[in-house]
């Protein structure tokens, strides 16, 4: 099954995943605002480029600016047998369709006693860092991961973007697929294989401390790990890839090895998913931990516009380095 890996940007990888899934399964459709004729030729980040030309405007639909109806119709169409991908220009706008996602899609299987599948993928971008300010920069993954019935995907590289999007479209569960708006042009090898949900990836192996990170925080953690390696500190980085289902087993295994845990996410730290991971780890690995787990996340503030302000709100590689030092520093192992 080993095909030679292509080097693709994340937006290209997503485009390829759509292309391949559309080719394989004629019941897949996509709809969203400006997805065929915007400057990129495929939505604001180019992800749907050439889709309409290749698969026709019947399957690739430009929609009015009507997020609520768009998401609700996506749910209804999914319940009625069409695999629907809905592109929401920025994930912040998915909140306009919260009823469709949270009260309808997430519950349709359960409340009707298992009769209906709802193969809906809501694709959108979250994240900050490019001056889009408070209403175009949120990281809402925790909010969706909290809802039973929804699955949440947060790819951090091109290969995962490709493989996870294919799995999301094939999935019979409603899936929130969050891309990072600052990472569309990141390039990496893509093997063009679907990747199952709920399987974390070891982004870097290490022995002294485990960092759990997603999306942009994976690359910032890698940067931090590189710096710490110079000081003889060996950091392991686990990227869960899907926040729900969540591969805690891989995290436990890593924590048991390193005996230290730091969670780094871009979502607001307070009430964020980092707390979930810490809570589980404390409960499960209490005896194996050498120090209290720690977490980093955005400040409890909307994302500001001005560049220096925006940078101050989101954890940097430097913040990660200093958290790692703190985490390890608390481990003062006294000689017996």
């Amino acid at each position: 099954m080993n095909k030679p890996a292509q080097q693709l940007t994340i937006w290209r990888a997503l485009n390829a995943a759509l292309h391949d899934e559309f080719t394989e399964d004629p019941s897949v459709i996509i709809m969203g605002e400006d997805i065929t004729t915007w400057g990129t030729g495929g939505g604001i980040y180019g992800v749907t480029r050439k889709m309409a030309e290749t698969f026709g405007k019947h399957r690739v639909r430009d929609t009015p600016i009507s997020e609520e109806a768009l998401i609700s119709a996506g749910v209804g169409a999914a319940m009625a047998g069409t695999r629907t991908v809905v592109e929401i220009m920025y994930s912040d706008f998915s909140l306009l369709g919260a009823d469709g996602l949270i009260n309808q899609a997430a519950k349709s299987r359960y409340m009707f006693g298992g009769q209906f599948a709802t193969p809906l993928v809501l694709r959108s971008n979250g994240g900050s860092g490019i001056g889009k300010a408070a209403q175009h920069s949120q990281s809402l993954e925790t909010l969706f991961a909290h809802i039973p019935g929804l699955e949440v995907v947060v790819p951090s590289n091109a290969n995962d973007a490709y493989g996870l999007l294919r799995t999301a479209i094939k999935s019979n569960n409603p899936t929130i697929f969050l891309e990072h708006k600052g990472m569309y042009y990141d390039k990496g090898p893509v093997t063009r294989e679907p990747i199952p949900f709920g399987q974390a990836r070891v982004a870097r192996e290490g022995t002294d401390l485990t960092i759990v990170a997603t999306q942009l925080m994976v690359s910032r953690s890698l940067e931090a790990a590189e710096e710490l390696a110079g000081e003889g500190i060996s950091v392991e980085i686990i990227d869960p890839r899907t926040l729900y289902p969540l591969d805690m087993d891989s995290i436990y295994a890593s924590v048991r090895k390193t005996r230290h845990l730091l969670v780094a996410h871009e979502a607001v730290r307070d009430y964020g998913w980092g707390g979930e991971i810490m809570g589980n780890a404390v409960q499960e690995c209490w005896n194996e931990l050498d120090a209290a787990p720690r977490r980093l996340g955005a400040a409890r503030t909307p994302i500001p516009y001005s560049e220096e302000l925006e940078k101050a709100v989101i954890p940097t590689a430097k913040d990660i380095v200093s958290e790692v030092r703190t985490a390890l520093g608390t481990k003062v192992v006294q000689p017996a």
Partner: protein
Amino acid sequence: MNTLEAIEHGVFDLATDGVEALKAMTAIREFESRLPGYSKEGLIRGSTHPSVGMEAIAVGVSRSLRAADSIASNHRGHAHCLAKGADPGRTLAEILGRRDGYCGGKGGSMHIGVKELGILGTNGIVGAGIGLATGAALAAQQQESGAVAVAYFGDGASNQGVLAESFNLAAIWKLPVIFVCENNHFAQSATLEEMVAQPEIRRRGEAYGVPSFDVDGMDVEAVANAASEAAVRARSGEGPTFLVADTYRYLGHMADDTEIYRTREQVEAWKGRDPIAKLAARLLERAVLTQQDIDAIAQEAIAEVDAAEAFAKASPFPETAEAFTQVSEDNR
């Protein structure tokens, strides 16, 4: 309450459709009239919303629907399900939270879905079915299945934003959807006049380019003919239609409603337009049925609902373990 067959374009034949419709409306009335009693007995938990007085709409619309067509309903949705072919025993079992209910007791009155009948659920969110039916129509268009979708909703729901967005979406894409507003003049206790400055709800459809019509919701023949036109339009690719059916609910919004927002006189006045009595009178007048036939239909309805009641009450409650299943495909 058998699945009703499609009728020919715009022709409601009293001798056939009329008799079928009378049977269906009478049975639904019997079914819905018993709900407050079940509530008092403690057999129904939470809220349930009877639609006594509004039978002509569900039955009239369903005359032109086929099994493969979808409906998305609302909190007052048992009649829509029954008219679409749902079994009264299984429907009542769901309302009573029993294992033999359509959703195994997980849904209850406000979440009755039946996949094989295209029933995408009664719904607890006012207006939500409008978006879902629009989506089911989109699926039908994608699949070129020739199916149509119906959204049933109240006058109160017409104030939800999803209505405007869905009307526009259905109109530009020519989706095979029929929007049916059951204007019973109340949203809980709020009157139409207090809650909208332009009470001609039909105009909301017109504003978005959706052909829109008022119809007498107390006259099953009028509803059936209008719905049949709409279904023909939908099936031939001409897009959505909006029907606003004037009607009234005889009972409270839900069990224990004190109904302080309306007068006895108003309720009695509307009963003077009763859809079942009206159809029965027409069938008598045209000598399609005798009074004995009509009495027999009423007796049949009682027997049918008796049987449904016995079935539902005999059905066990689901196992506790069921509370934790069917959350997602892999139940994770």
